[in-house]
């Protein structure tokens, strides 16, 4: 990946198409690889997923305002931020707020002025930039690795559709999902490691590996017990815990056997609506010598299993309110992919500070 080292990336966040095109042109001419977004949340997504050395940010966006976008991107990105506003008198107020932008520019601006500001920004070394630069590169790489650990979206099990989405609050996170083919059908996991960021991501990868290693054990209770005991030691050492939902599908009969270790947010979607599935015990790592008894659920044709992470709850006052919104999103969806997208969309407000995940497994109507 050595070619990546010298490429400078920029993300342009601007809702006006003409101005955005102009910005893209000017910034690309400065030698940046440029991505563009018309909304604050799309911009944040790009910065998070591809990384950025420079962000130009319009103050007035249709969804989040530029100040909010800046505050949120500062949680995971060290990019130089150039805030662009339509009103010159806004700049004084903004500078006083200390929102984390590096420079401000008012519209209309000349291409030359913008280019000069960018050059000036990059001449100005970031405080502790020498130490931070490799860190930022490492973060970007870590995010790439974590994404590569997600399952292949094109796994086919006859008569079923499956989709999953995960959006970490920072560049990497403690949420993950996994699935893989088994002799009988499918193994599925959704888990949430305590905390956020790199520490949580390391634990998430460990849990994924340990659970996969027990796939060959045909007795689910035994398999999960072994995995849980193994993980308990590691998690206890790090003062952490993980909530895990793990299921095995027998494709021919539609029978799901599952263990819910303190996750609590798995749902059976049927003609009757959404039913939350009972949990089997505490999270892994929380209580020594825990045992989790597996539960069973029969998926009738047209039924689905939906598992979300608690990040979805951040936008709601109660679990019931969140589940009702999830139900509405699922009813309106056109496919399992669309359902997951809509659920992540529910959890995209500024109050959402946690990783968010949704996985849906649907049995065909046939």
């Amino acid at each position, binding site marked *: 990946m050595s070619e990546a080292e010298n490429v400078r990336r920029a993300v342009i966040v601007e809702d006006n198409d003409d101005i955005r095109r102009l910005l893209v042109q000017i910034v690309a001419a400065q030698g940046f690889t440029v991505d563009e977004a018309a909304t604050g949340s799309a911009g944040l997504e790009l910065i998070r997923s591809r990384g950025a050395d420079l962000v130009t940010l319009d103050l007035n966006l249709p969804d989040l305002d530029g100040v909010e976008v800046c505050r949120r991107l500062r949680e995971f990105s060290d990019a130089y931020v150039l805030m662009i506003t339509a009103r010159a008198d806004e700049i004084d107020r903004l500078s006083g707020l200390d929102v984390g932008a590096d420079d401000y520019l008012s519209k209309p601006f000349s291409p030359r002025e913008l280019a000069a500001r960018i050059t000036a920004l990059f001449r100005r070394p970031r405080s502790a930039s020498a130490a931070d630069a490799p860190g930022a590169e490492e973060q970007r790489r870590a995010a790439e690795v974590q994404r590569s650990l997600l399952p292949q979206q094109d796994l086919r099990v006859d008569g079923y559709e499956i989709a999953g989405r995960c959006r970490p609050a920072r560049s990497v996170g403690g949420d993950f999902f996994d699935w893989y083919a088994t002799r009988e059908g499918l193994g599925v996991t959704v888990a949430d490691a305590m905390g*956020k960021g790199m520490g949580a991501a390391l634990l998430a990868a460990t849990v994924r590996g340990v659970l996969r290693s027990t796939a060959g054990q045909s007795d689910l209770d035994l398999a999960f017990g072994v995995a849980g005991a193994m993980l308990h030691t590691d998690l206890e050492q790090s003062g952490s815990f993980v909530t895990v939902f793990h299921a095995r599908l027998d494709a021919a009969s539609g029978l799901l056997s599952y263990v819910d270790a303190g996750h609590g947010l798995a749902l059976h979607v049927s003609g009757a609506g959404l039913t939350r599935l009972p949990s089997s015990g505490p999270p892994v790592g929380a209580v020594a010598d825990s045992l989790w008894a597996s539960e069973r659920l029969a998926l009738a044709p047209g039924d689905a299993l939906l598992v979300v992470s608690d990040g979805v709850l951040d936008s709601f006052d109660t679990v019931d309110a969140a589940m009702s919104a999830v139900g509405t999103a699922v009813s309106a969806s056109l496919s399992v992919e669309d359902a997951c997208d809509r659920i992540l969309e529910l959890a995209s407000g500024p109050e959402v500070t*946690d990783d968010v995940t949704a996985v849906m497994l649907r049995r065909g109507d046939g």
Partner: protein
Amino acid sequence: MQFTVENRPDFAEVQGVGRLNMVSAPKLREVIAGVVAGGRTHVVVNLGGTDFMDSSGLGALIGCLKLARQAGGDLRIANVQPQVRMVLELTNMNRVLTPYDSAEAAFSPRGDSRD
């Protein structure tokens, strides 16, 4: 989040006001480790002023519970607010960290005052 410790006759009461999250959780661990190291192994965490707790906050409570038990005591929680109660129920941890109505009730000899 600021924590205060009050020494009651039968237990130490730790109270925090604000959000128990990734930022404040290490502080709670530190405060309670200090309390337990000082010989007060029966600890009540009064969560009356804690309107939000995330997984790191829950992790801190679990860690402190282990610490108190290892020292021969126990840790209990009281005055639990709705969002915190929701996290405890969702994770099934309400069976281990049972909410009590008040700090006094947590170590009351009549152990039936759990709510």
